[in-house]
């Protein structure tokens, strides 16, 4: 059974992505009999390249993905380098992991309201400092360069990269390295950058790639924060797939293939940058510079992460204010009156989506966790090196959703698989599983093998040792992985909507549908509900090991 786990995982992930890609590839090259496309042609590509602003769309998608990832990574690295385990550092760390739980759309809405000309920041300064009685006519949100999109993405990617780094760090014996480097006269931040970072980066490289792939093809954040004339490629693709003129489907399919190319090109570009950085820093690592830049790096490291965490929190506060707001006009900082109306009117509609969300999230995460555990346990028992083929696990993270989901529906329909809860759960599994694997694999492999040897030598079978020794010892990372999986599942929009044909409603599908009505107060309510669910998951993940291990000191950290 166990031996089948890796093959099963790969089949479960690769088949749907592959089938989806094929069903998008065909129309991209003119084959779609239902619309009269019977033979191969390049017409869809010609139509695509004739679209006004296509080059700009591509450029913005490409650049916003790379720049936001670089910013988020830099913030995380500098923070870790500057962090000294003070209460402030610990506080920031605690703050960050729940931020991971907040869905992209919720952050984007909150952030947009923060920085818009009529947003919270402008209200805070007006009219006292600015003299503005009306919001200034300034293009901040939806700026043509995608700067607000980049900022929003960086805000959301930072917690993920930090969490992944924190998971990888313990195996690097950071304290010993730092002690050694400092005894050689290196200042702490530089010591970290020169002795820890070079070993840390290879361990978080895959998560970084996942982030780039996500950021180059994101739809929801780009809709809210991204440029509009033209929009990012992903947003254009979605509107072409949904265009009333259904012959646009050919061009939309070609664009989906192009999106895959853009994402792969961004990954390739990042890889080249990696090589370049390695070359350029080779000398710096050993040039003996021990102090230079210490203070500046430390300041930047702490303030950047603190600032971005505070921004994310302020965005949530803005959403909260709106969900309670009565009439609220610029430049009033607070609403004229607070009301529970919006919550009360939404409450009856919340029940079913909440139940569905919880069911889908728990089922897909539980399945994913079981499969990942089976794969890792198999790897351990067979003394296998992590399989190269497991790279395929990350396929659903690397291939943009928008590039294969539309094809996947056709594939599923062709097999007679109708939209339903089970299909949605299977669809979520595609995206949840890689993240659970990312969050769990390191901790699993790192667990001292002697624990299980002791258990065996005490006469306990391998299966029993798995349940009685390994799982309890891995409780904390297991719960974190579970919480990450839940958060990922709860945030899924396109897979839920497309695979469920809209019949399976979750808080996210409801939130997106309502968001199209642009009622900020309702968006506030739904975004908070959407953020609240995974937040509960994270709180539990943090609290459970403490509760269970209250008497066991070594487990509670």
């Amino acid at each position: 059974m166990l031996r089948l786990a890796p093959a099963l995982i790969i089949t479960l992930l690769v088949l749907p992505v592959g089938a989806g890609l094929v069903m998008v590839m065909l129309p991209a090259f003119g084959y779609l009999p239902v619309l009269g496309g019977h033979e191969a042609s390049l017409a869809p590509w010609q139509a695509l390249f004739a679209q006004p602003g296509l080059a700009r769309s591509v450029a913005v998608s490409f650049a916003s993905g790379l720049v936001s990832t670089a910013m988020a990574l830099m913030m995380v690295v500098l923070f870790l380098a500057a962090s000294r385990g003070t209460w402030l550092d610990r506080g920031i760390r605690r703050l960050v992991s729940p931020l991971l739980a907040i869905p992209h759309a919720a952050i984007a809405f909150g952030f947009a309201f923060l920085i818009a000309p009529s947003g919270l920041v402008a209200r805070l300064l007006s009219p006292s400092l600015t003299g503005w009685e009306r919001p200034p006519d300034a293009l901040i949100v939806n700026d043509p360069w995608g700067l607000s999109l980049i900022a929003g993405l960086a805000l959301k990617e930072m917690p993920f990269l930090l969490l992944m780094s924190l998971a990888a760090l313990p195996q690097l014996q950071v304290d010993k390295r730092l002690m050694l480097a400092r005894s050689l006269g290196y200042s702490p931040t530089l010591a970290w950058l020169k002795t820890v970072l070079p070993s840390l980066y290879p361990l978080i490289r895959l998560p970084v790639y996942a982030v780039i792939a996500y950021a180059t093809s994101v739809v929801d954040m780009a809709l809210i924060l991204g440029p509009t004339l033209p929009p990012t490629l992903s947003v254009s693709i979605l509107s072409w797939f949904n265009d009333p003129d259904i012959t646009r489907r050919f061009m939309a399919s070609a664009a989906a293939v192009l999106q895959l190319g853009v994402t792969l090109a961004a990954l390739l570009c990042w890889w080249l940058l990696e090589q370049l950085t390695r070359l350029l820093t080779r000398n710096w690592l050993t040039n003996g510079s021990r102090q230079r830049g210490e203070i500046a790096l430390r300041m930047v490291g702490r303030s950047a992460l603190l600032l971005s965490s505070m921004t994310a929190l302020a965005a949530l506060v803005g959403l909260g204010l709106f969900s309670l707001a009565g009439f609220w006009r610029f430049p009033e900082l607070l609403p004229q009156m607070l009301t529970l109306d919006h919550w009360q009117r939404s409450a009856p509609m919340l029940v079913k989506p909440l139940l569905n969300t919880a069911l889908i999230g728990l089922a897909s995460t539980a399945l994913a966790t079981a499969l990942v555990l089976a794969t890792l346990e198999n790897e351990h028992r067979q003394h296998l090196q992590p399989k190269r083929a497991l790279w395929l696990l990350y396929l659903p993270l690397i291939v943009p959703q928008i590039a294969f989901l539309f094809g996947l529906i056709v594939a599923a329909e062709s097999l007679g698989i109708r939209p339903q809860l089970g299909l949605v759960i299977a669809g979520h599994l595609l995206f949840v599983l890689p993240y659970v694997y990312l969050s769990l694999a390191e901790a699993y492999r790192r667990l001292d093998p002697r624990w299980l040897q002791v258990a065996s030598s005490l006469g306990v079978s391998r299966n029993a040792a798995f349940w009685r020794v390994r799982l309890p010892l891995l409780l904390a990372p297991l719960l974190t992985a579970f919480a990450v999986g839940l958060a990922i599942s709860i945030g899924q929009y396109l897979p839920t909507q497309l695979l469920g044909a809209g019949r399976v409603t979750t808080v996210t599908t409801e939130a997106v549908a309502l968001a199209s009505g642009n009622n900020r107060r309702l968006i506030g309510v739904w975004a908070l509900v959407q953020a609240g669910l995974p937040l509960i998951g994270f709180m539990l993940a943090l609290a459970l090991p403490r509760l269970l291990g209250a008497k066991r000191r070594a487990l509670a950290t």
Partner: protein
Amino acid sequence: MANNRNGLVATISITMLALALPAAADPAPSNWQAVLEEAEGQTVYWNAWGGDTRTNRYIDWVAEQMQAQYDVDVAHVKLDDTGSAVARVLAEKQAGNHDDGSIDLIWINGENFAAMRENDLLFGPFANALPNFALTNADENPEVVTDFTLPTEGYESPWGKAQITFYYDSAQMETPPQDMQALLAWAQDNPGQFSYPRIPDFTGSTFLKQALIELSDQDEALYQPVEDADFEAVTEPLWTYLDALHPHLWRSGRTFPDSGPNLRTLMSDGELSLAFSFYPTDAAVAVKEYELPESVRSYVLEGGTLGNVHFVAIPYNSPHKAGAMVLANFLLSPEAQAEKQSLTMWGDRSVLDIEQLDADAQALFEQGERHPSELPADALSNTLPEPHPSWMTALQDAWLERYGVN
């Protein structure tokens, strides 16, 4: 079942086979009693834009009534874009799913209807056979059987009426502009305080058509397929107008609001002073829900504004056509139409010919006192008809070509 698929897929497929309804012959709408019987116990998946809580609330009410009166379960599938439902039906057809589709009823009109008709994605004709259809008095009210100049031919059933309605804050502005040229002059005096949704948004495209109709003096060519007209010549006044207008729009026309409802949010933020909606009661509703100040007033341009009827249609592969027809018929009942028109529910105007109804039914439509932000009762008398749907696509493409990259 092919036995070489992996276990999960096979399991799901088998479950689905067991759940799938046997492909039955389509119900004949002429035999209404049979339709009612077949509908009993069905679940109708009604795909309708879900961005408006008031519409959603009304659909919830409809679902309750359908359950109680006809034993039909109505599930509202909330869409953020009607096009996604069209895409869904197309994907099902592409995959060869001709009798077990996932959509039973779509809220639709205009381009989407034209596209679905053209690709044989709709079931029908059924609408004219619905018992309540007669109440629309279609002979006298051709708009209920015409969708963007196309005859509906019974493939969609009328549901409600929309018309472009402008609104402004009377505390900040005394006399709002009454036609397109006045709008331009006003925008030049008040830069950054007006905009329209980014094309290809539905409301934004409607604004283009409104402007084109007025600026071209209701050119006859607009009501024929665009291929038959000299597009450049007909639209020339529109582009000249927009070239002049854009620099004075919100954000100097470098970006546009992403949707009709977004105009309302921008009004609420004080970024815009003048906005418009496709739903005449929108402003009054927004005032009630704290989004707009009480000083907001609605009005219609002097030369009239573009209006249309919105419909419901049944996809060709719906497995619950009987239930869908019973629902479409219920939507046309005086009871449902009156409830829809009430400002406390939705405020969407009726497609029935109210004066032809019997006294009891007419009484249902009596409204209480009008909301001060609402339009005066007679304001909507001057409705401009929609151009041929091909104009919308052509206008959108031309707009994107000119203004799509800034």
